[in-house]
């Protein structure tokens, strides 16, 4: 298993180790693939789909999430193409009404929106819903579970009613001294709505239908 695998990313020969994902191989070779829900310390999750790329194998091309797709010998990857760009643009447009803060995006999301020419207000008027300032990327939940092991923040609900909530009994004991998720939250929601003693969105809010 010590062999290296050679694949092609954007025309460039890239050498990777077996078991690596396309995203890891690309980043190691200095090729940037954008992603919202990926973090090198955590298991690939595949929720944001921003890291979608074109993967060609045996003459067949398909769209795959590079954060989870394993490298294979002879694989040809295109990280940019009209199809890939359209996916990234539309995904940002779709998530913006849920992710914006006072009508604007921040950080990486803002940069991506500009790069891909996404109209972040495209679906706002139609949906008439209040932004939750959350893309549900799950970085906070997974960081707390996989890296810290504290289990103070989690997912609840499903479908379009899926939420992230704090569990105050746990959170009040561990969050003030950790604040790991505050830093990785791509919309800044956690830092703005929780401080380690106060939590703006909790399991109780969810159960009472306040979210």
């Amino acid at each position: 298993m010590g062999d290296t695998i050679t694949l092609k990313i954007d025309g460039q020969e890239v050498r990777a180790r077996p078991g690596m994902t396309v995203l890891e191989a690309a980043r190691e070779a200095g090729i940037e693939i954008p992603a919202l829900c990926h973090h090198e310390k955590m298991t690939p999750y595949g929720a944001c789909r921003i890291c979608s790329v074109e993967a060609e194998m045996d003459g067949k091309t398909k769209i795959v999430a590079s954060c989870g797709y394993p490298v294979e010998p002879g694989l040809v990857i295109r990280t940019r193409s009209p199809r890939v760009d359209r996916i990234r643009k539309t995904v940002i447009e779709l998530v913006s009404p849920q992710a914006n803060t006072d009508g604007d995006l921040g950080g990486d999301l803002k940069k991506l929106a500009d790069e891909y020419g996404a109209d972040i207000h495209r679906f706002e008027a139609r949906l008439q819903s209040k932004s939750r300032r959350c893309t549900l990327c799950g970085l906070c939940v997974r960081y707390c579970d996989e890296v810290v092991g504290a289990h103070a923040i989690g997912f609840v609900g499903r479908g379009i009613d899926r939420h992230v909530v704090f569990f105050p009994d746990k959170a009040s004991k561990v969050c003030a001294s950790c604040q790991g998720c505050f830093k990785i939250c791509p919309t800044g929601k956690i830092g703005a709505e929780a401080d380690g003693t106060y939590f703006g969105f909790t399991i109780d809010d969810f159960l009472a239908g306040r979210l």
Partner: protein
Amino acid sequence: MAGIAALVSKVVEGHHHDRDMLIQVLLDLQSGLGWLPREALVEVSRQLRVPVTRVYQVASYYKAFSFAPKGRHTIKVCLGTACHVRGAGRVVEKMETDLGIKRTETTPDLKYTLETVNCVGCCALGPMVMIDGKYHGQISSDKVSPLLAEHE
């Protein structure tokens, strides 16, 4: 409180303290208690050694679980495709008017809980209504009031 902890112990033991059985444990508690009170969920987390975040994630993900007590009669109106094209929408609306509650709600006197389900698998007889586990087929909006009257 003690009652709930004891019940959780019994159920968890019945599943040999196996964490993989989390969903089965919650199903047993739901049917034993009629809902999942917070104490029960915390007990499950403690006794099965599963993070409470995961217990709530699972409990809030599935439709079978409820976080509030239910009425004496649980009414489930099927909204499967076959029932939908045969007018199940009108049946739920009539239920809502008759009971004075919206779907997923319970009447203040705790008599009825109104739920909708996405197919009970009895499609040939739609629209289908289940009351307390009993199947009632070919229900139209004008049959709603008499049906409710049978379940005082």
